[in-house]
């Protein structure tokens, strides 16, 4: 049995240091070691995107990253984007436009969508669909998810203009 490694992560702004086997998958580190249960285990095969988190500014699938690979990185999960008293614009928009049914895919959807709107602040519907291709939803048919993201983009752009 190989030795455990010393791992250091910054998760939602908090420093975390612990010993782990290198093979531990980041999704399990977050959920089981840190009780950060927003990122979900969906397919476990890099397809569904329910486990999406942000590692060093990239939205990635945490089921396909070893904790050893993430060592030293900065991680943001849905918990770091907003909270019940102060929702992220995208969280508010998903609520307003009913961008979910069962909600299982929603944390991954919203986490990926934050990066999508950084990459493409004023997306077309097609760009939203293409940019969200790594997140699967089995309930909604995507219609309201796309609507929620477009509405959030409009709101963020309006806020930006008002600030300028």
């Amino acid at each position, binding site marked *: 049995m190989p030795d455990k490694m010393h791992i250091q992560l910054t998760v939602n702004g908090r420093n975390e240091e612990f010993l782990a086997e290198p*093979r531990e998958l980041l999704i399990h580190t977050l959920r089981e070691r840190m009780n950060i249960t927003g990122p979900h285990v969906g397919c476990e095969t890099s397809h569904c995107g329910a486990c999406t988190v942000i590692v060093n500014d990239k*939205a990635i699938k945490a089921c*396909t990253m070893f904790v050893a690979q993430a060592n030293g990185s900065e991680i943001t999960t849905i918990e770091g984007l907003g909270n019940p008293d102060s929702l992220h614009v995208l969280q508010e928009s998903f609520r307003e436009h009913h961008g979910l049914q069962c909600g299982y895919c929603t944390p991954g959807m919203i986490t990926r969508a934050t990066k999508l709107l950084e990459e493409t602040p004023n997306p077309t519907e097609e760009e939203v669909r293409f940019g969200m*291709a*790594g997140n699967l939803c089995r309930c909604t048919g995507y219609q309201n998810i796309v609507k929620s993201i477009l509405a959030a983009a409009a709101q963020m752009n309006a806020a930006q203009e008002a600030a300028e």
Partner: protein
Amino acid sequence: MVPASFEYYRPTDVSSVIALITQHGDDARVMAGGHSLIPMMKLRMAEIPHLIDLQDVAGLTGITIDGFTVRIGAMTTQTELIDHPGLRQTAPILREAALQIADPQVRCMGTIGGNVANGDPGNDMPGLMQCLNAQFTLIGPDGERTVAARDYYEAAYFTARSEEEVLTSIHFSARGGGYCYEKQKRKIGDYATAACAVTLYKEEGLCAGASIAMTNLSDVPVWSKAAGLALDGTSVDANAVKSAVEAAVADIDPSEDNRGPVDFKVYVAGVIIKRAIESAWSRA
């Protein structure tokens, strides 16, 4: 799904990588973005006692364009290929192909080196590299050598790279002209049912050289010399396209799998190759 245990290494230079591979032999493997290897390890179809993560190795990243010559470090991600303004100008076919690989989360981890190195017939970049006549730089215990993409693939997951070598960069010459990477897939993000890369040149209304290669239509990528020659000197009219498609289809050897039976794949290949040629010609 938890992979078997392994020792993890994150060296910072190529010579340390080679030293680790030499020390551990068959028990060691290098990993780039990990999006082919980690799923295989989770399924326990790959067991790797010594895993060498290349993410911190100096000199494996970056895209440089010097005149017509494009050099891409092996650890360049698909997202970096897509976003690179110079590459978009010089070799837009790379962006066109990269955008058809997997999905955004996977593209920001998956690398061009990983995509071309492991010999997975489903990967898109090997066919494109054969189309572009790209050269792969390999470094091993005996130094550096260059292998042409057209000579690199031997069988599914078997390549000209020895187990002690690491693919460090790719280079090719990009001289403009028409281009297209056309891919038929069951759903967005899937591997190709059939895909085709075409580059060609137009001079005074006639084709002055064409290169055609295909993805996932044999256990290795297929560059069809005869298909390119079938277009050369023609006005790429319906007859020339038909000849080129027939020549290309004669060079493939698809096998039946969950993407369909052989006859279906041959049919789809014909459609995709035709579309790729016509699209490339319209852009020439």
